[in-house]
């Protein structure tokens, strides 16, 4: 289960809407071992693509150094699908490399950049196996 503050969900959705029709991506870091997402870190999609995302390699190094110094880990790794459902694609599964993270998918296909319905689902991806999990929101 992913337990997450509503405000962080709102920030993820706002980022995904702002970058629509390209995919948006980012991390919510939290203290190592806490399983608690706390620090919202929107990232640039270096691929600037509606069908692919990738953190820029220099940004990636800075992000991990910064988390290391703060004793944090990526608790949530999120990205959007802008034309398909909020479910991990084959490439998402192939490149998933954080077995402890919650992979959050946001689909903006229905409302695009505007306010309106969106899908948001959370998964773990371990050794190519996708498992959907429930989301417990709190204020």
């Amino acid at each position, binding site marked *: 289960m992913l337990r997450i503050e509503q405000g962080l969900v709102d920030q993820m959705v706002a980022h995904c809407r702002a970058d629509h029709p390209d995919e948006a991506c980012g991390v919510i870091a939290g203290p190592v071992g806490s399983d608690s997402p706390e620090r919202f870190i929107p990232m640039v999609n270096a691929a600037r693509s509606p069908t692919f995302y990738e953190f820029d390699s220099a940004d990636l190094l800075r992000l991990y150094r910064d988390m290391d110094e703060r004793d944090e880990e990526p608790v949530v790794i999120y990205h959007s699908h802008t034309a398909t459902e909020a479910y991990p694609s084959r490439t998402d599964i192939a*490149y998933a490399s954080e077995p402890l993270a919650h992979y959050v998918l946001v689909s903006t296909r229905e409302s695009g950049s505007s306010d309106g319905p969106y899908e948001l689902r959370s998964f773990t991806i371990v050794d190519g196996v996708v498992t959907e999990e429930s989301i417990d929101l709190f204020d």
Partner: protein
Amino acid sequence: MAVEVRIPTILRPYTGGEKLVIAEGATLAEVIADLDAHHPGLSDRLIDDSGLRRFVNVYLNDEDVRFLDGLATGIADQDSITILPAVAGG
């Protein structure tokens, strides 16, 4: 040359859970071969027949080795190497 190599979470099963290991070599290719000699299987996760795997980033100090000389990048004493899987998908 002895260098420190930072190992990402997903590869720590190969290093007995260690996040920092020491390896030797004058080039990145030699360092990876030395890593593999002590932690069998690690090399396969980093390189394939065409060189560094597309979705593995290796940094020498602050620089992605793709912008240096790739596997031929020279390593000096006191250098540090960081391995990070790309965060990517579709």
